[in-house]
């Protein structure tokens, strides 16, 4: 005798329902009730179950349980999976190549070439001796404690993913800034990407692509990290001084001239702030991506957690913090250089 029997009998659905008494496997709490003796007392108003799918199924077997909903979703996804991966697999293949070759390149180039290159990049974008010294000390320090390969793997993944984020995110941001309907359509997606626990979108990815492909974690990182660069590109362009845009219009600039001559350059500080955040979020995601086999410092962090190897976890965590500070300071320094020429 379940709570909502009356509902189905009053609707005359007894025949459709079949026998009363639920098709769900017994749960332990049901069992506990049974073991306490006989028919459970009829529930009082305080124990009235919410008329959920499962509660209704208790009264009417033909009524689906909520697990059938999740099962249906799963089957639906599995049905389109082949078609989806048929389309997505080739499109995303270059990502695998890029990650593979970046990882291969950075690990197979001697350290005495890689480190000077990294330092040169730091100098080019920041022009700051202090920062250069800091980066040099950090990288050499990581190398000295035998974390060079892990750190370089992490760095290579971040470089590739952040570059792709910028290459895709900036045009999306521009498109959003030019069309309100595009903006309205995109913002919920961005919100979703930012709030979904990273694991949730790893699940369909694992189904779609071979888990041994680096693009699996590449896509996870990109989906997670692309949001700020899109948002800030859109915002930056929308925030460009209206009077400057008006001047551009008044002098007869075409849309293209306006975009590349005015809007993008003026939005550059914002775009760079977005790039900075994107890089930082890539770094955050690299640790989580280790769960889907991304190499690098994240692997050590995971090992530290799994085996409670406190030292391993701490050193790897510290390495990640160092990388974060390096990347943050370097992008901020280049941002500051841009800002210096952009004062209105």
């Amino acid at each position, binding site marked *: 005798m379940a709570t909502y029997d009356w509902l189905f009998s009053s609707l005359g659905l007894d025949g459709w329902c079949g026998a009363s008494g639920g098709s769900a496997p017994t749960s332990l709490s049901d069992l506990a009730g049974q073991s306490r003796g006989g028919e459970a007392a009829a529930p009082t108003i305080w124990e009235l179950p919410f008329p959920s799918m499962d509660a209704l199924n208790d009264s009417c077997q033909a009524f689906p349980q909520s697990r059938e909903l999740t099962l249906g979703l799963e089957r639906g996804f599995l049905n389109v999976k082949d078609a989806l991966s048929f389309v997505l697999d080739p499109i995303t293949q270059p990502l695998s190549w890029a990650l593979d070759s970046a990882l291969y390149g950075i690990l197979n180039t001697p350290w005495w070439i890689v480190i000077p290159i990294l330092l040169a990049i730091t100098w080019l974008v920041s022009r700051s001796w202090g920062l250069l010294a800091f980066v040099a000390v950090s990288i050499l320090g990581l190398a000295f404690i035998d974390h060079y390969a892990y750190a370089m793997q992490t760095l290579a993944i971040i470089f590739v993913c952040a570059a792709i984020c910028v290459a895709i995110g900036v045009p999306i941001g521009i498109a959003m800034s030019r069309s309100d309907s595009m903006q309205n359509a995109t913002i919920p997606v961005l919100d979703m990407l930012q709030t979904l626990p990273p694991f949730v979108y790893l699940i369909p990815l694992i189904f779609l692509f071979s888990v041994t492909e680096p693009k699996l974690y590449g896509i996870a990182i990109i989906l997670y990290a692309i949001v700020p660069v899109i948002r800030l590109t859109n915002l930056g362009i929308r925030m460009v*001084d209206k*009077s*400057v845009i*008006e*001047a551009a*219009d*008044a*002098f*007869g*600039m*075409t849309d293209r*001239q306006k975009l590349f*001559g*005015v809007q993008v*350059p*003026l939005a*550059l500080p914002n775009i760079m702030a977005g790039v900075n955040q994107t890089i930082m979020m890539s770094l955050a995601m690299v640790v989580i991506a280790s769960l889907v086999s991304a190499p690098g410092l994240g692997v050590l962090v995971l090992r530290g957690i799994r085996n409670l190897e406190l030292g391993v976890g701490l050193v790897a965590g510290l390495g990640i913090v160092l990388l974060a500070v390096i990347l943050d300071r370097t992008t901020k320094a280049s941002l500051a250089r841009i800002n210096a*020429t*952009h*004062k*209105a």
Partner: protein
Amino acid sequence: MRNDRHTKTTKVEIKNLYKIFGAQPEEMLPYVRDGMTKAELMETHQHVLGLNDINVEVKEGDITVMMGLSGSGKSTLIRHLNRLIDPTAGEVRVDGEDILAYDEDQLRELRRHKMSMVFQNFALLPHRTVLDNTAMALTVRGHQRADYEDDARAWLARVGLGGSEDQYPHQLSGGMQQRVGLARALASNAPIMLMDEAFSALDPLIRTDMQDLLLELQEELSKTVIFISHDLDEALKLADHLVILKDGYVVQQDEPQKILLEPADDYIVDFISDINRARVLRVRSVMRGPSEGRGTVTGEIGPEETLENVIAKSGGEPSASFVVVQDGRQVGVLDMDDLMRALVPTGASESGMRSRRASA
């Protein structure tokens, strides 16, 4: 020279122009045509009446000043001339062509070749040098640096900014930035120049400098200038033709001297009450005919001189009387008591100066 409006060609013509802001501007049009005011439209239909039946002819080579307080619609109006804003109804004709019928390409041509614009807050490109900013109109047209560099340098020198070519706008003072803005407009070589409160953001002293610079350039270049201002002194100083706007409609438009002497209504009277009339009014506006001299002639003056100058020449002598001479020919006479009377602030149309002039 200043009173030959009918002999000049019309460069820009604004006819029955309406602009209503809101969700359904077209549907509001009949109410406005039936005489609904800005406040009433806001109250009953939540639409903002921007411009209400504007009719203005801008003559070639004139400085036409459109002035009004904030909310009067002056900035909206000037943006209709290069279609930064499109009207709800009406016509804008440039050289006789209806620019509202222009497609995007034609409009771009208009903006590139016929009109340039100077903005209140300068609107320079902060990431480009002064030289590149000056050459903006030229680069937009596709000129290369080699083509425009000399030109841009010349214009910068002309507005007094020689030597600042390689600086960035943020390194310059406000006044200097607006000189770049002016040079940028001039470098485009367009016959029509729109100036939207171009000097309003500047300090009073610098503003006066810039006004003088504009007048000086205008002597030389004779552009058709449409100048927006909320400052009556500036308007009176610059205007060949003055259009006074209030709540989106034209209260009065005329030669500035005439507006001072014959204000159309109390609003204008109020508006001009704080003006130093002696500094604005000119001899030609208040003199009598050549044959009407009454007192002893104590000196000669020109028709374009301000009354302030005349007072100075009179040395404060109340009985002084001047002949007005232009190109060696006597065109009128001016007594000190006429002059004094002209300085008395005028009431609205039916009283004061206007009735005196009518009886004279």
